[in-house]
């Protein structure tokens, strides 16, 4: 999701409507969220599948169609142009593709210039994945001599004056000192050579995806003709960007001229502004939506979405005609959605479900519920702690450092997954120090242990009781639980650094180790800043369930 500011006055003039709550709701019904409406602007949230909406022009075009002001598909004429872009073999493995266009009859002013830069920026952030996938460049035609070469150069040979700099810089200086250079330097890391656009006099136009030249790559309000390129790792993406921008520029009144992009023996003439076709079946749409739409409905509905409609040869076979900027169609299911949006989600009558199945809760949930009931009966409070807990805190308890960790948690102190529940419950006691004792908590939840190439997850139960408690009290509660489950356990002395020596038992039921219980060691209590004795237990619920259901 990316937010887009739309000039309210221009939009309302174009669609001939006043701003009303209904109008805002119409925007939402089209699938665009209105974040806010300020004095001059609408702030909209655009979803990533619709890069064509990321400009004043693109949004206005779609909304006008949706409202029925300018229904149907917008098509754009291209004029065959003479400019050639030679793509050198050397860009393979560096930045292999580019798609280009020449724009003429630009009637810019400062406002329009800002809009063009904004379109570029929005596309860079979203569709171009912060320039990782592709980057866009616009250049004033008058600064360029002859045809253009797209080639790769060794970094040591690249020296030019980047945008807004006062002198020539080497590419290394740009990457280290220029703001854009610093921002995008990571995208060039490890490359043997850098891609560049050169004109026939070998002047550097730009080093994508970093920056244009100040001398040949800065458009102004007085620019009448421009060279437009997108370069990146995928030709289709580059071309789609050019198509989207060309449509917006043509909406401003400019004309689009093609460029021959020559890849060795293969030549791509870009942009191709012709319509594409997405085949769909009428019955497919109706079955998916639960509607009963007819041929003529499809034509009308697709027109609302700015799409064309064509009948196929076979019955119920149709085509949605897609203008070049609609790049979000992969499957006929995408037609289904556009039809539904055009129809209005609120116009689709909800049908009460009729899928007969027998439901039920999982065995694990049922078992957990039994444990909860028993422990609540003993007057214990159920706690719920986060699954993330500091590695350091956990390790301090029992010296175990083999813990599942997170790469880069933004919440301090939550850098690992809990391996047992006791540390969290000790923190619960710490947090409740100010309240009177006795305090008794239990927690049922998931714990995590690292394993080769995966993480071992299990469901645990932990109990902690603080105040006038000892081993006997804890054992009574645990035995009460076993009794409720129809089990009998053996308690044998064991050593566990978390518990006081001589006051810790291992619980075994039916030959299976269920867990440990005992009086918490003073070391552990002190670490948790506690000054009252406490008894704790940590049991494996998965194993307990298995022996119960055996």
């Amino acid at each position: 999701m990316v937010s887009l500011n739309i000039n309210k006055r221009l939009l309302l003039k174009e669609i001939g409507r006043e701003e009303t709550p209904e109008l805002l709701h119409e925007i939402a019904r089209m699938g665009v969220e209105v974040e806010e409406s300020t004095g001059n602007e609408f702030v909209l949230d655009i979803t990533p599948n619709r890069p064509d909406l990321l400009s004043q022009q693109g949004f206005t075009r779609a909304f006008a169609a949706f409202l029925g002001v300018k229904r149907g598909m917008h098509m754009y004429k291209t004029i065959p142009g003479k400019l050639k872009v030679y793509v050198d073999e050397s860009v393979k493995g560096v930045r292999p593709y580019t798609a280009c266009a020449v724009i003429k009859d630009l009637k810019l002013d400062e406002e329009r210039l800002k809009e063009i830069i904004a379109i570029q920026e929005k596309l860079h952030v979203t569709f171009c994945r912060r320039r990782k996938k592709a980057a866009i460049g616009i250049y004033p035609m008058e600064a360029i001599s002859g045809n253009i070469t797209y080639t790769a150069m060794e970094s040591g040979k690249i020296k030019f004056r980047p945008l807004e700099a006062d002198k020539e810089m080497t590419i290394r200086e740009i990457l280290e000192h220029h703001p854009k250079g610093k921002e995008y330097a990571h995208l060039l890391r490890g490359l043997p050579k850098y891609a560049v656009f050169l004109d026939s006099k070998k002047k550097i136009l730009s080093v994508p995806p970093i920056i244009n030249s100040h001398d040949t790559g800065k458009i102004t309000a007085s620019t009448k003709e421009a060279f437009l390129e997108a370069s990146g790792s995928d030709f289709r993406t580059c071309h789609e960007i050019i198509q989207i921008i060309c449509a917006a520029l043509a909406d401003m009144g400019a004309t689009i001229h093609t460029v021959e992009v020559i890849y060795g023996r293969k030549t791509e003439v870009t942009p191709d502004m012709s319509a594409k076709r997405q085949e769909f079946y009428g019955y497919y749409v109706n079955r998916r939506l639960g509607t009963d739409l007819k041929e003529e409905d499809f034509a009308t509905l697709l027109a609302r979405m700015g799409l064309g409609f064509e009948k196929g040869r076979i019955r119920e076979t149709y085509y949605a005609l897609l203008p070049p900027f609609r790049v979000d169609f992969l499957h006929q299911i995408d037609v289904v959605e556009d039809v539904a949006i055009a129809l209005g989600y609120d116009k689709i009558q909800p049908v009460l479900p009729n899928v007969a199945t027998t439901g039920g809760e999982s065995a694990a949930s049922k078992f957990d519920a039994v444990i909860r009931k028993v422990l609540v009966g003993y007057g214990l409070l159920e706690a719920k702690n986060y699954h993330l807990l500091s590695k350091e805190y956990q390790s301090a308890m029992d010296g175990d450092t083999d813990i599942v960790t997170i790469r880069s948690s933004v919440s301090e102190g939550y850098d690992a997954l809990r391996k047992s529940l006791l540390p969290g419950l000790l923190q619960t006691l710490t947090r409740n120090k100010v309240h009177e004792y006795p305090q008794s908590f239990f927690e049922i939840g998931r714990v995590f242990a690292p394993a080769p190439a995966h993480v071992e997850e299990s469901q645990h139960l932990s109990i902690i009781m603080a105040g006038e408690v000892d081993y006997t009290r804890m054992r009574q509660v645990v035995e009460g639980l076993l009794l409720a489950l129809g089990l009998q356990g053996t308690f044998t002395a064991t050593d566990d650094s978390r518990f006081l020596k001589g006051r810790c038992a291992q619980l075994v039921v039916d030959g299976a180790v269920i867990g440990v219980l005992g009086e918490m060691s003073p070391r552990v209590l002190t670490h948790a800043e506690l000054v009252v004795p406490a008894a704790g237990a940590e049991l494996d619920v998965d194993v307990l369930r298995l022996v119960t259901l055996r």
Partner: protein
Amino acid sequence: MKGVPEEILASLHPLELKVIPHLKDGITLSEIVAKAGMQEVEAMRALQWLENKKAVSLENLNHTEVLLDENGKKAIAHGLPEMRFIEALRKGAKTNSDISKTAKLNPQEYGVSVGLLKKDGLLDIEKDNTLKLIGEGGELQKRMEEAVEFLKKLPRDAAKLSKKEQEVLKGLKERKQYIIIKERKDRIIKLTELGVALAKTDVKKLDFAERLTADDLKTGAWKDKKYRSYDVSINVPRIPMGKEHFVQEAIDYIRRIWIEMGFEEMEGDYVQSAFWDLDALFVPQDHPARETQDTFYLDHPRSTVVPRAAYDRVREAHENGGGTGSKGWRYTFSRMETEQLLLRTHTTVLSAQTLWAIREGRKPVPGKYFTVSKVFRNEALDWKHLFEFNQVEGIVVDPNVTFAQLIGYLKLFFAKMGFPDIRLRPHHFPYTEPSVEVDVWHPKRKEWVELGGAGVFRPEVTKTLIGEEIPVLAWGIGMERIIVEYFDLHDLRDLYRNDIKQMRDMKRFIRIEER
């Protein structure tokens, strides 16, 4: 016992019975405490009960008490320092050290005494620095005696001092640690008509048993006994109880709704591969939401192995549509990316795994599946952000389901949650088409509130995982907002603070749907 109704007599608590013999109009709480030999809290409680019975009325009485302090005690025992100073002079002491020694004055007391004597013009300092008393000093001596007399009578009620005594008090207040002034709260008791009658009653003769005993029952003594009536309207202390966590109660409530509708509960791992969490759901590998700042990727262990059969199908769906009728995302699928381990970002991963289980014959079609469980997002913890929260996930797998039915399910669920009006807006998720965002009309706040996303799984998901294109209705609804609001919390962190007081006092999660 004329004048006091029987039911009043029957309701007298032992503490009240202790107080009643001492009741007098205008008596104070402290006096009763002293006379009845009770604890102040006991007497106070008894008096409040009597007040509830309209036998007495209590009025606050604040008075100031004058108490003796350290130097005051010394002055009573040895006289005031200046008095000792004068006496030393009279005995012929002349020099600084002689006087201090004879009068047993410390340097501070010496200094104070010199100051006081000079002030009254009683002291003459000779050229050789020796001291001499001028005149008799009778006036000062009189004042000193009065002060000592006053000190001897402490403690006193400041309100009951004579004018003269008040002057003495003023003088002593200026001196260090002679007296302590203490504000004391007391009550004054006024008797009503009933109170007067009660005071006259010989309560010792009352014979109401305090408790019904086992003996009473065994011997039949209860037949001849009268038992004290309790004031059943008074507050009683709370007994802390054991409880399930309130979030668990809400989860169970929501789980029950889906179980009632015939949904089967799904389960699965919290730690998942990017493959199941994202790739199997057709989220392109360069999707912005996959970046580390939003997702908890694991550091140890870092990656896992993805099952071969599933891997190949999903890879193809991404690269070229894989026979789903889709063009696919058309890029080269990365194994490294897909094998990364992460904390599941949505419960939709369990839906994806359920679809794969259908292919393997482990789950039936038609089928309805749900879960209410935790998902994770790499957020900094603050009052409106948690890094883990519960999601309500549901899918309906059936060859005949439609988008219209999806709306039906959502309407039904939200009605059961107390939101009969819902509104659907088109939205985008990489794995559903059509996709919707669900708003509910909030009856209290009178506005639309966004609560979840839903849609029909894309063929790239269903055909790839199930093996055939069966439509699957799906939704993922955030739960925390509903819970927080129900329990009237204003900080999301309060959900998992585990504060014992908060948890004990928390009301239960009860929602009863209207039919």
